């Protein structure tokens, strides 16, 4: 028969693990939310440099689309590893 202390410890451990997981997921969610904004800023700075050297705006936008592609790849790989590990 398990003692009250043993049960208490287990409950405490589960609560700690749950809280840490929630904290981790919230931080990742905040990261995901700010990522889109960061990508937009990066793309704009990148395009500006290309346009300054005489590249057409359309071509500069096409080249900077690589950043969005990379963002999607990173998010997908993070999602994949999270799903695999949880």
């Amino acid at each position, binding site marked *: 028969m398990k003692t009250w202390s043993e049960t208490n410890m287990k409950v405490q451990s589960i609560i700690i693990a749950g809280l*840490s997981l929630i904290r981790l997921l919230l931080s990742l969610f905040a990261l995901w939310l700010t990522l889109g904004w960061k990508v937009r800023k990066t793309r704009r*700075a990148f395009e500006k440099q290309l346009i300054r050297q005489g590249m057409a705006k359309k071509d500069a936008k096409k080249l900077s689309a690589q950043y969005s592609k990379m963002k999607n790849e990173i998010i997908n790989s993070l999602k994949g590893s999270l799903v695999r590990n949880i």
Partner: protein
Amino acid sequence: MSEEKEKRKEKEEKEDVEELREVLGVVSKEVPALIKSIIASVFSEEAGRDMGKAAAAFYKELKDAGMPEETAVKMTENYISVFTSLGDILKGVGKKGKVIISTKEGEEIGKEISEEVSRKIKEKLAEKRREEEEEDEE
């Protein structure tokens, strides 16, 4: 005696819980910070500007050398894609040492290769036939 044992056990369990609390606290703090710093090194205004400068210099050199606009843009795109293949590297890391090319991608590449090979063979055969016909006519 048994009371003492129980107390020791309880103390050990308390220490375990404390340790778990510390470990999970560090993990939940450090993992997002690590990901954040990796992302910031690629997706930031400064990183975009630096990469843009490098790509623009590359493009300008090509243009100055007399390269047509379309080719220069295409080559600059290839130049950037080397840098942006970071996503592929991350994918590979996530797969724990497995082959980076996925089965679907592998199949697509294989299909492309076989199509290209059969096209080349057909071209060569047609060329050979033409040569033989020309020889016969002579």
